């Protein structure tokens, strides 16, 4: 898969990297058990700070998408669920848009409930 970051973009670099890994899982380019590039190597080839990559990987670990193990590096979890992740991405976009419109959490939940047939 392609890791692509824009150092001039407003979005933090760590978030850009995390988003690309999520996209890779959603599109099936990254399958469970697949190893991500070692953080040091990715930082080197993208010419960014090692800690930025580590922050991105830690974020993905907190989202239960990858496992970080000493010596084994970052591995896509067996239960990394592309289908669920796709929904999470849609929900994220929904929440972003709702926030822009000034909606509060209770109103967002109400809209989701309304959407159920």
């Amino acid at each position, binding site marked *: *898969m392609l*890791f692509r*970051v*824009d*150092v001039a*973009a407003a979005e933090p670099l760590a978030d850009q990297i995390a988003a690309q890994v999520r996209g890779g899982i959603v599109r099936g380019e990254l399958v469970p058990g697949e190893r*991500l590039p070692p953080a040091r190597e990715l930082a080197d*080839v*993208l*010419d960014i700070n090692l800690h930025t990559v580590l922050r991105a990987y830690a974020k993905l670990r907190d989202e239960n998408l990858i496992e970080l193990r000493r010596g084994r590096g970052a591995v896509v979890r067996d239960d990394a669920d592309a289908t669920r992740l796709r929904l999470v991405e849609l929900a994220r976009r929904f929440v972003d848009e709702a926030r822009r419109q000034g909606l509060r959490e209770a109103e967002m939940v109400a809209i989701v409930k309304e959407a159920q047939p």
Partner: protein
Amino acid sequence: MRRLLVSAALVWLPVGVLGLTWAAWHGRLPDRIATHWNGTGAADGFGPASWFWGTLLAIGVAAGVAGVVAARTPGARFLLTTAGSVSGAAAAIWLATAGATLANPADARLGWRFLLVFAGLVWGVVVAAAAGPRPVTAPVGAPAVDPLELKPTERVAYSSTLRSPLLLGVTLVAAAVVAVAAATTAPAVWPVLALPLAAALLFARVRVTADRRGLRLVAGLVGVPVKRIALADIDSAEPARIAPMEWGGWGYRVAPGRSALVLRSGPGLVLRLRDGRRFAVTLDEPEVPAALLTALRHRASG
């Protein structure tokens, strides 16, 4: 096409020699003949003549089949040459051995006849000469990709993992066969076990990266870099369909002017290097790294 037919026939010629000489000589040959020679040309190993001949015939036939396949595959000159050398050598070993035995059945001496083996190996060159020059293969159906659009502030890296369950399976079966042979009959074979195991470790899982450094192949299970091509050495990168026979088979192949990691037939990335050599690796969606490397080349030179 005619020249290729002739060259395929030339690969079979030594097989014919094997058949004719057996028909002519087997009545006069002892049941057991010298099959191995020490450094001074004296016999130090003996075996049944029919078994020795049969083994060489099988090798010759296998080379003959490979020769026909190679003649039908455009660009498979290396395989064709190898097939010629193998069948030539098989017949030459038989001629040298049987000839030495016939000359003096009581005390066979190899003598000058070991030179025949070299002549047999050179047979591959004759086969290659008959086939004529390699056809100029224009990269048809493999359009050069448009470079990936890169903003000056963008940084991109490609990483992909190749898996080859088939190659892993085959090497593990080979390892099992060697282990059984070593355990039951030939303990000297134990070190040979290292070969399939090393192959499995190196090529069962390979990570391919393309980035500002160039192209790299890293053996996944052990983390050893098996190939590094610097960005500056890359002339062009193109997606192509990889036919294993055109690159000399499956696995890590090295032939004059080109090398390749071929884990299956199908799409792959082909690099043309500045020094005229080519490198290929089988990959899903090779357009992605091809477009990236093309863009990085442009960025580096512009």
